[in-house]
C-alpha cells in the first residue's frame, strides 16, 4: 500500500497505526470526513474532467408533482438522474425504510433516456422496493422534505427575501434521502457492469453522483414552489446561502452490518486513510502555504463543531469534547513551531496524549488537507472486488488457523461469551421490515434468526473446536466435521491479509453502540453533522458547502468543505 517512490518528501518512516488501535468501535465512531471521502473524490474528478450538467426535462406542476431529469456528461459517458416529485400528505412522511410513499423518488439511468424509459421508470421508481429497475439503471433512491425548512425557504423566496442562514445551518438540507440503493439491488446493474469505468473508481461513486444531483433538484423544487406561489415577487436563492444547503440522509441499522460484511473493502478504506496519515507524519518540513492552510482549516473546523447541535447525549458529550479539543489544538499550534522538522508527527503525537478520540480523528482529517499530492491518489485504492468467491485454503494446518485466529481475535481472550453481557445482542432481519435489526438475545425469541455478524464470538467458538484436532491436520478435514465454522474460517483466512478488515470489538455486547458503525461508514462517504436520534439511527448532511453543478467549473470543492471563516459568513 505504501509507496515511497511517490512520496519524495518521506524522510522518516512512520509506521501505520495498528489495527488494534484503529479498529476499535469508539475510535471508528469518531471518524470525520477527509480528502479521501467519496463525495470529495467524486467532485474532484467531475471538476478535473470538466463534466457538463443540464436539466433536459422539467415537468413539475404548481403542486410540485411531476418529473425532472438531470444529466451529467463526462468525457466518455452520460448519466441521467430521473426525479419523480410527489404530493405526500404529512401523515405519510416516514423516514423508516418500510415507508411506502415519499416526497420524491429517484433513479440514476446509465446514459441518456427517452420517453419510453421515463414511462417504464414512472411505473416502478415511485414504488421503490416494490418496483423493479433494470440493468440500465445504477441507483434507486427516495427523499422526504424537511417540512420546516422547505416551507420556510419557499415562503422567504416567494416574498422576494433570502432565508436566514441561522435557520438553515441547524438543519442543513431541504430534503433527506431515506435510502440510496446501488450495486444490483432491486434490479439495478451489477457492480461489475460499471466497476471498471474510471469515473466510478473508488467506492459508492454512482450513489453519490445521484445524491449530488438530488441536491440540485431540491433547490430547483423550492424555487419552483416559491415561483408558483408568487410569480411576481419570487426570487432564487443567492449562491452563498444556497451552498449551505446539502442533502440530508436518515440512516438506521440497515447500514450497520455493512462494515462487518465487507472486510476486504473496509480494509481498503482504512488502509488508504492510515497510509495518508503516515505520509503526512513523514513530511520533514511543511511549507508556509501548507501551514497557513492547516491553521485556517483548524479554525474553520472549530466553527463546524460550534454549528453541530444534537439532542443525543452520547454525541452531545463527544461534540463538547471536540470543541474543547479544538480550542486546545488552536492554543497548542499557536505556541508550536509548525515549520520545525517533523512538526506534523509531533503534533499528532501530542494529540494522542492530550485530545479525546473525536479530537484525534478530527486532527487526522485536518492533517491530510494541505497534501493533495500525498493523499489524493490513494482514493483509487479504496475499492475491492468482492464478487469473486474467496476460496478457503483447505490445505492450511489446524495449527496455522489457530494462530491466525489467536492473533486477529486476541481481544476476545478477555471476553466470556457464556456471560449474558458479552452476547446480549442478536443481529437479525425482521420479517416485518426486511431490514437488519438488533435485538436482545435473552428477552426476545430471535436467536434462531441470528445473522453471522459476531466474528469475535464465532472465532472463539471455532477455536474451542480446533483444539480437539491435531495441529497438523488440514482445515479441510476440520470443516467437513464442523461446517458451522466455515463462515468464520473463510473470514479469518481473508482478514489475515487485510489488517483493517476486522473490527476489534464485540459486535453483540450489551453496551455496543451501532451508531459508531454508522459514523465510521458515513465519514468515508463524506457526511457531516452526524445527528444520532437514538443509539441506532441518525441523520447526517451530505454535500453541505459543496459547489452545485452550475458552479463546479469555477469553484474548488475541496476549499468549501469546512464552513467559511466567520467574516465572510456575515452576509
Amino acid at each position, binding site marked *: 500500500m505504501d509507496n515511497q517512490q511517490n512520496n519524495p518528501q518521506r524522510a522518516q518512516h512512520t509506521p501505520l497505526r495498528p489495527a488494534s488501535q484503529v479498529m476499535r468501535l469508539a475510535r471508528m465512531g469518531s471518524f470525520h470526513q477527509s480528502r479521501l471521502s467519496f463525495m470529495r473524490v467524486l467532485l474532484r474528478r467531475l471538476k478535473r474532467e470538466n463534466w457538463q450538467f443540464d436539466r433536459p426535462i422539467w415537468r413539475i406542476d404548481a403542486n410540485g408533482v411531476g418529473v425532472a431529469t438531470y444529466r451529467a456528461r463526462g468525457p466518455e459517458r452520460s448519466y441521467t438522474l430521473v426525479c419523480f416529485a410527489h404530493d405526500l400528505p404529512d401523515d405519510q412522511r416516514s423516514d423508516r425504510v418500510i415507508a411506502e410513499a415519499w416526497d420524491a423518488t429517484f433513479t440514476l439511468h446509465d446514459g441518456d433516456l427517452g420517453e419510453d424509459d421515463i414511462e417504464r421508470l414512472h411505473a416502478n421508481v415511485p414504488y421503490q422496493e416494490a418496483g423493479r429497475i433494470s440493468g440500465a439503471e445504477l441507483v434507486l433512491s427516495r427523499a422526504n422534505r424537511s417540512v420546516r425548512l422547505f416551507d420556510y425557504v419557499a415562503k422567504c423566496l416567494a416574498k422576494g427575501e433570502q432565508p436566514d442562514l441561522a435557520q438553515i445551518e441547524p438543519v442543513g438540507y431541504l430534503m433527506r434521502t431515506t435510502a440510496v440503493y446501488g*450495486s444490483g439491488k432491486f434490479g439495478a446493474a451489477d457492480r461489475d457492469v460499471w466497476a471498471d469505468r474510471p469515473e466510478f473508481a473508488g467506492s459508492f461513486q454512482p450513489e453519490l453522483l445521484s445524491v449530488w444531483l438530488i441536491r440540485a433538484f431540491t433547490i430547483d423544487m423550492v424555487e419552483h414552489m416559491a415561483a408558483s406561489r408568487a410569480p411576481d415577487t419570487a426570487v432564487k436563492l443567492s449562491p452563498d446561502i444556497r451552498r449551505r444547503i446539502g442533502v440530508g440522509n436518515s440512516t438506521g441499522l440497515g447500514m450497520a452490518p455493512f462494515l462487518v460484511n465487507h472486510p476486504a473493502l473496509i480494509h481498503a478504506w482504512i488502509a488508504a486513510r492510515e497510509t495518508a496519515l503516515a505520509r503526512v507524519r513523514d513530511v520533514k518540513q511543511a511549507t508556509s502555504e501548507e501551514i497557513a492552510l492547516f491553521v485556517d482549516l483548524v479554525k474553520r473546523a472549530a466553527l463546524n463543531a460550534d454549528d453541530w447541535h444534537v439532542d443525543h447525549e452520547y454525541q452531545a458529550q463527544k461534540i463538547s469534547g471536540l470543541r474543547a479539543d479544538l480550542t486546545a489544538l488552536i492554543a497548542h499550534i499557536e505556541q508550536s513551531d509548525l515549520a520545525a522538522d517533523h512538526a506534523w508527527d509531533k503534533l499528532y503525537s501530542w494529540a494522542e496524549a492530550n485530545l479525546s478520540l473525536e479530537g484525534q480523528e478530527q486532527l487526522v482529517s485536518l492533517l491530510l488537507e494541505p497534501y493533495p499530492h500525498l493523499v489524493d491518489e490513494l482514493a483509487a485504492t479504496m475499492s475491492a472486488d468482492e464478487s469473486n*468467491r474467496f476460496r478457503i485454503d483447505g490445505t492450511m494446518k489446524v495449527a496455522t488457523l489457530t494462530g491466525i485466529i489467536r492473533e486477529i481475535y486476541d481481544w476476545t481472550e478477555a471476553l466470556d461469551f457464556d456471560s449474558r453481557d458479552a452476547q446480549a445482542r442478536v443481529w437479525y432481519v425482521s420479517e416485518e421490515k426486511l431490514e437488519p435489526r438488533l435485538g436482545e438475545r435473552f428477552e426476545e425469541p430471535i436467536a434462531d434468526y441470528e445473522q453471522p455478524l459476531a466474528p469475535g464470538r464465532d472465532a472463539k467458538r471455532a477455536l474451542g473446536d480446533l483444539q480437539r484436532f491435531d495441529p497438523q491436520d488440514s482445515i479441510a478435514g476440520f470443516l467437513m466435521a464442523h461446517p458451522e465454522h466455515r463462515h468464520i474460517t473463510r473470514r479469518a483466512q481473508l482478514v489475515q491479509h487485510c489488517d483493517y478488515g476486522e473490527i476489534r470489538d464485540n459486535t453483540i455486547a450489551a453496551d455496543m453502540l451501532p451508531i459508531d458503525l454508522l459514523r465510521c461508514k458515513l465519514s468515508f462517504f463524506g457526511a457531516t453533522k452526524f445527528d444520532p436520534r437514538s443509539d441506532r439511527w441518525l441523520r447526517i448532511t451530505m454535500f453541505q458547502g459543496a459547489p452545485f453543478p452550475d458552479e463546479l467549473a469555477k469553484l474548488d470543492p475541496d476549499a468549501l468543505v469546512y464552513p467559511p471563516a466567520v467574516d465572510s459568513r456575515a452576509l
Partner: protein
Amino acid sequence: MTTATHSWSVGETRSLTVKAARGVGMPWGIAEEAGFALDWLVRHGAPGVTAMCRYLSFYATGIEQGRTPVTMPGTEGDGWVCPLGFGTALSDGAINLPDGGFRLREPMILIPFLAACAGSGAVRLTIGDISIDISSDGFHSEMIPHSLLIAEAECRIASIADNDLPATTHPVTRVGSTMTECIAVLTRYAHNTYAPATEASRLAGAGAGLSDND
C-alpha cells in the same frame, strides 16, 4: 409492480440464494457456497437459478422428512449426497476426486466447484450418458445447458487433457423474467431467515417513536 420486461441482477439473485440456502437449514458458510455456485452457473450460461431452486426445494422436503444430506458419496444411507457439501469438500481439498461412480442430487451444482479445483487442468463430469468438460474458465457440453438439469443420476469425474477444451459459453449478466417462479421459491425460503416481529422488537426497533416530520 413488476412488468413483462423485468429482470434481476446476478448480485441480488446471489444474495437471495445465500438467504434461501440458510433458510432451508444450511450453515452460513455453506449457504455462501450456494451463492457462489449460483453466480458462477448463471454467468457461464447454465440454468443455475432453476437448478438451485429445485435443489433447495428437494433439500427442504428431505429435511422435513427427517432425511440427512451427507458430504461423502457412499455414506448417504437414507439421505443423499449434497452437491454443495461434496463440492466444497472437493474444492477445499478435504477429499480427492472419487475413482468410481456415485449418485448425486442435482449434479449441475457440482460444476462450479470442479471448476474451482481444476487448477490449470480440466475434468470431465459424466452424468448418466452426458459429458461435461470443466476448466477454471468454464464448461462445455454437447448438450444444450437446459438438458443438464438432472434431478439425480449416477456420476463420474475424471481428469482430462485440457488442450482441446472449447471456449466457454456466452457470459450472462442478468436473470430474466422467465425465472420469476424460481425467484419466488427462493424468496419463500429466504423468508425463513426473517424473525417474526414481536412487540418488544417493534418498540426497540431502529428508533421508533420520533417524529419524521421536521
